[in-house]
Every structure is written in C-alpha cells, then in structure tokens.
C-alpha cells in the first residue's frame, strides 16, 4: 500500500505540475475582461479596445497607427489581432464571438453580413467618418436609417495591361473604349504572340471563383440591379439580362488565355504570368499593386495601366468600383468602449494624421471626402480615383448575392463551363434556380 501511495504521490505531483502550468499562463489573459467591468465609469478611465481584422497587408501599418493613437490618448489601450492566411476570417470571427472574447471592432462585408451580424452591430451614423463617406458607399450597410459599417477603402477592377507589350504591338490603350475595340486589340496581340514574347493574351483564373463568380459576374449583373447592392440583396430572382455579353467576355478571356484555365489560380495569374511579362492583360483590381511592386518596383510604377471593363449595351468605358469590407463596432460592448471605438475610426479616416496613414501607408484609395487626388500613391488607384470623379464607374452588387451563390454556384459552374463539361445554358439555368431557392 505504501508503494501505491508513492505512485499516487508521483501522479499527483504530475497533475500539480500541470495545473501550475495552467494557472501560470491563464492569469495573463484576465485583462481582456477589463473593458466590460468599467461600465459605469467615466471616459477618463482606461478603456481597452480589441480589434479583429482580416487585411494582413495593412497589419504592420495599422499597428503603427494604433501606437501613434495610443500615445496621443493614453487612456485608450488597443489590441490588434489580424487573421492570417487570408481565407478564414468568417470562421475565425465566429469562433472569436463564441469564445466569449468578443472584439470591439471587427469587419463585415455587406448586406448579407449585416443581416447575419445585426444583433451585434452598433449604429455608426453619429460618427464623423460616416458623414464624410463618399456618396453610395454606405448603401450596403444601411438599414432602417441606421449605418452599421464604415468603409475600409474603395477598390475597383478592370483589365490591367502591360504598357510595353501594348506599345510593341502598336496598340493605343486609350482607344479601347468598347468591347469590340477590346476584341480587336486581343486579336492583334494574339497574332503577334511570338514577337511580343508572350504565352497568351490573357491569364484567366477560373480556379479563383471570386474572380469569375463575384467580380466578372458583377459587371454583368450590376446593370440588372441598377448598380444598387440593396436591390440585388432584396431581389427574389436573377434574370441575367446581360447574360450573352457575360458569355462573350468569358469566352474571350478563356479562349485567349494560358490553358487550362480551370486550374489557373491568382498567384499564377498575377505574379507568375503577368508579373513576368508572359501575358498582356489580366482582369484584376488595384489591390494587385503591392504584389506587383514587391516583384518589380520599376515595372509596377511605370509599365501597368487599367483598361475599363466593358459591358456592351450598358457602360463600356467604365470601371466597377466598390467597398470590399466595412469596419463594424460591437453593440454588446459598454457605451464608453463603443465611443472609444468610434473615436478611433474617426481619427483614422478624418484626421490629417489618419488620412496620411490611410493613403501613404495603407495605400488605400479613400472612400471618404476630403482627400486630395495627389495623395494616392499608386497609378492604378489614381486611375480609379480619376474615373470616379468623371462618373465613369458602376457599383458592386455581389455583396448582395445570396450567401455562397457567387462563388460556390456560379463560379464553380463557370469552371465546368471552361473545361467543357457544362453548357452555358445549364450554367445560367442552375444559377437562376439556386438564386430563387436561396431567396424563397
């Protein structure tokens, strides 16, 4: 029995060692709940803000901005957490909320997200930033007169082209203002492939369902919903009024692309093929700029431009432009935390210091008034900014598609269409059916 006792003692020691380990680390995480305890205190009391965001590209710059802000506001402590990998923000955010450590500031995508997260969203209409937001950027997050999100930035896409290849082929990019002109240019480029040293005219990444199912389809569904994301969100059906034009665009990009397109991904498209001059054109947006810059600074600064995204019968000389993501404030947090969150976002987007950070360090195209055009630091963003001021843009509606419809239904079917195992009619009829089913 005494031997058994010894053994038991050893086991207990092990368990205790384990529990020491547990409590040793566990005690560190208690400051998280500080924020909720100070419910009734005045605003001079220290406030802790947890930010949970998805844009890894601005992780370091945002941390710098936070450090600056905390220096000026010593009673505010901000913890920044960024989700890596770039894919799982939705899942990570749900886990975060379920784990009890709810962030004060997080990201939502558009009307669909607002509907899902509504019980957690604070009204932001009293913020300075909301008043300064460019017309139309708030429609996707406005419900019953309440504003549930503040735009990150403006993004737009079109056909990004290689200036050198175009000039070698003798094509003037400024002359391409219609779909027909685009087709002619593509044919010219295709006939000179050898001299130009390119593998193909396009790189069409059908593997990335967001490129086809969201961005490409958006251009041809936007006119159907008058470019209004809320109309798309509230629509029970989708007609594909511009379905033929959409088919033409897919066929054009697919036929003249590096093959096979069903397995071509974003990295191959932007970096491996376009970034090294193997293709002349890609359908992408201003977000590719930092990527191209990190490949070859000189090329990114001087040799790229963006052609408009033509929709025959609607707008042929325009760019689809919209807000990719919004900042939201958690309504379950105590009032002073919510206020501190709003103050921080106001500072970031409307103070002179914040503006500087947004344009120079985040390299955003601002979605707010009061920014000067020359503060935008990259040529693609500049082109979009100019186009917007000339009214040559149309709105994004894909945030109003039913959950998962754009990528998992339409984008997935487009993969089968380009590899020849599904007819176009089937793609359209399936997409219509799935939309109607989702909105029943």
């Amino acid at each position, binding site marked *: 029995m005494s*031997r058994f006792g010894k053994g038991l003692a050893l086991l207990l020691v092990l368990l205790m060692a384990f529990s020491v380990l547990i409590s040793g*680390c566990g005690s560190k*995480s208690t400051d998280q709940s500080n924020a909720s305890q100070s419910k009734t205190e005045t605003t001079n009391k220290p406030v802790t803000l947890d930010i949970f965001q998805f844009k890894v*590209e601005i992780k370091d710059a945002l941390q710098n901005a936070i450090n600056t802000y905390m220096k000026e506001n010593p009673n505010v402590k901000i913890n920044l957490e960024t989700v890596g990998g770039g894919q799982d923000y939705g899942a990570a955010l749900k886990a975060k909320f*379920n784990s009890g450590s709810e962030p004060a500031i997080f990201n939502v995508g558009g009307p669909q997200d607002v509907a899902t997260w509504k019980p957690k969203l604070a009204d932001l209409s009293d913020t300075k930033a909301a008043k300064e937001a460019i017309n139309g950027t708030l429609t996707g997050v406005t419900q019953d007169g309440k504003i549930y999100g503040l735009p990150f930035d403006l993004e737009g896409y079109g056909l990004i082209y290689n200036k050198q290849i175009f000039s070698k082929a003798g094509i003037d990019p400024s002359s391409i203002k219609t779909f027909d002109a685009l087709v002619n240019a593509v044919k010219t480029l295709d006939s000179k492939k050898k001299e130009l040293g390119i593998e193909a005219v396009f790189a069409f990444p059908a593997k990335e369902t967001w490129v086809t199912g969201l961005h490409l389809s958006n251009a041809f569904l936007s006119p159907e919903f008058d470019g209004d994301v809320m109309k798309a969100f509230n629509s029970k059906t989708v007609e594909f009024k511009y379905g033929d034009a959409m088919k033409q665009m897919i066929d054009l990009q697919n036929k003249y692309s590096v093959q096979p397109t069903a397995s071509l991904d974003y990295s191959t498209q932007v*970096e*491996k093929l376009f970034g090294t001059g193997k293709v002349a054109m890609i359908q992408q947006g201003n977000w590719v700029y*930092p990527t191209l810059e990190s*490949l070859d600074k000189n090329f990114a600064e001087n040799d790229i431009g963006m052609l408009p995204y033509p929709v025959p019968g609607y707008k042929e000389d325009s760019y689809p432009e919209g807000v990719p993501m919004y900042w939201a404030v958690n309504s379950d947090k105590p009032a002073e935390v919510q206020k501190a969150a709003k103050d921080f976002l106001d500072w970031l987007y409307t103070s002179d210091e914040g503006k500087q950070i947004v344009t120079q360090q985040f390299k955003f195209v601002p979605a707010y008034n009061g920014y000067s055009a020359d503060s935008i630091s990259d040529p693609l963003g500049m082109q979009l900014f100019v186009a917007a001021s000339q009214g040559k843009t149309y709105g994004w509606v894909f945030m109003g598609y039913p959950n998962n419809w754009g990528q998992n239904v339409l984008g997935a079917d487009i993969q089968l269409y380009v590899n020849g195992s599904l007819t176009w009619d089937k793609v359209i009829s399936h997409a219509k059916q799935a939309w109607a089913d989702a909105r029943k």
Partner: protein
Amino acid sequence: MKKVHVQKYLLTILGIVLSLIWISPFYIILVNSFKTKLELFTNTLSLPKSLMLDNYKTAAANLNLSEAFSNTLIITVFSILIIAIFSSMTAYALQRVKKKSSVIIYMIFTVAMLIPFQSVMIPLVAEFGKFHFLTRSGLVFMYLGFGSSLGVFLYYGALKGIPTSLDEAALIDGCSRFRIYWNIILPLLNPTTITLAVLDIMWIWNDYLLPSLVINKVGSRTLPLMIFYFFSQYTKQWNLGMAGLTIAILPVVIFYFLAQRKLVTAIIAGAVKQ
C-alpha cells in the same frame, strides 16, 4: 550468397532513387527560399543565382523567431509528454483489466478518432472561453484530448505483446500498480512511445487551425501562426514563406534523426529486459 548481394545492391539503388523522388518537392522549398520573388516566379525550378540570405533574415525578424520558436517548443514538448504518459497509463489499465467498462471505454477512445475536427471546433472554443482557458495551457490540454485516442490505440496494441506474467510476478513481490507501470511496463513500451512522439510531433508542431482559434495573445503565437502572416488574401510572400518553413521544419528533422537512433537503442534495451 552472390545472388543475395546483387539483390541487396538493387534494393539499395531502388531505395535511394525513391527517396530522391520523395524529397524532390523539398528541393522546390529550399531553392526558392534563397530567391527574390521575381526570380522565384521566373525560374521556380532552377538553382538560386546566389545564396542570398535576405529572406531568412526578414523571415526570422517577422516571425519573432525566438518567441514563436519557444512557444511552439513548449507546447509541443508538454503536449507530447502528457499524451505519452497519460495514454500509456490508460491503455495499460484498459488492456490489463478485462471488464465491461474497459471494453466500452476503449471503444469510446477509438470512435472519438472519427469525429471531424470542424464539427467540434466552435462548441469547443465556446466551452473553453467560458472558463477563460483559451491559453497555451488550455491548448496543451486540448492536445491531450485530441491526441489521447491515438495514444491509447497504439499502446493498447503494443501491450498485447507484453506478457501479463511480468505484472503478476511483480504483484506477488508486492509492487504497487503504479510502480509496475512506471518501472516495468513503460520502459518496455519505449518503441511505441517513440513512434507516438514521431507521429504527434509533426501534428502539433505544424498545427495551424486549432492554435489559431485558441491563442490570441500577441506573445503566445506559434510558428505556423506566424508563418501564415506571409500569406494574405491578395499578397502571398512565397519567398519568405519558404524561408520560414525551412526554419520551422529543421528542428523536427533533427529530432527525427535522433529519434531513429534512440528507437534502435530502445528496442535493444527492451529486448534485454525481456
């Protein structure tokens, strides 16, 4: 005898050729960890132009290497230790005592291996969040929960091969159960322990999803979490990712080399004791 020799040479050559094919994908990781991004995309397969160490320097700095490394090490070592000790104890009890409960509990452990992680992850973080246990030690405890099934399963199989006469003799000598387990059985299970450690280390050392849900304090992050910051929605820094990956897997490769040697000694030691 000659025929045997020829056969042996042929097998050796075959083995070496196969090994080289097997590790060829690592060639891609290694050579590209020395390239600039442009070079990586223009010439993925070729040798780097120079042995440029910039990627390694940048990666080490961005990874917070010493911190992330020690976090990963602590979590892995503690997890494997408690998985090995506790699951061998459990397997010993379950295998030696033949009652209804032991059969049922063994079944539960086995069947639990079939539960897909994605279906428990949200309730799991909700539960642990409630008890403020989303910490590194909470993570270690989770690894015990997820890893004990395989541990019990492997040890249970190995214990079948260890005769009960050993326990009985010791019991007659008046040894306690724990002593028997600790002094006699556990050393005999060494080969299984090393096998289990080899299997678990690669799982825990490289795990991304679970730590990403559990660890949210800046200073507590593990290597895989930090490596994922090289990848974002639009910008994927492959060159830094490759360098970071090389840094991250090197310790495990070294461990495996050492464990192999240990495995051989352990088997010899076990055989002698038997």
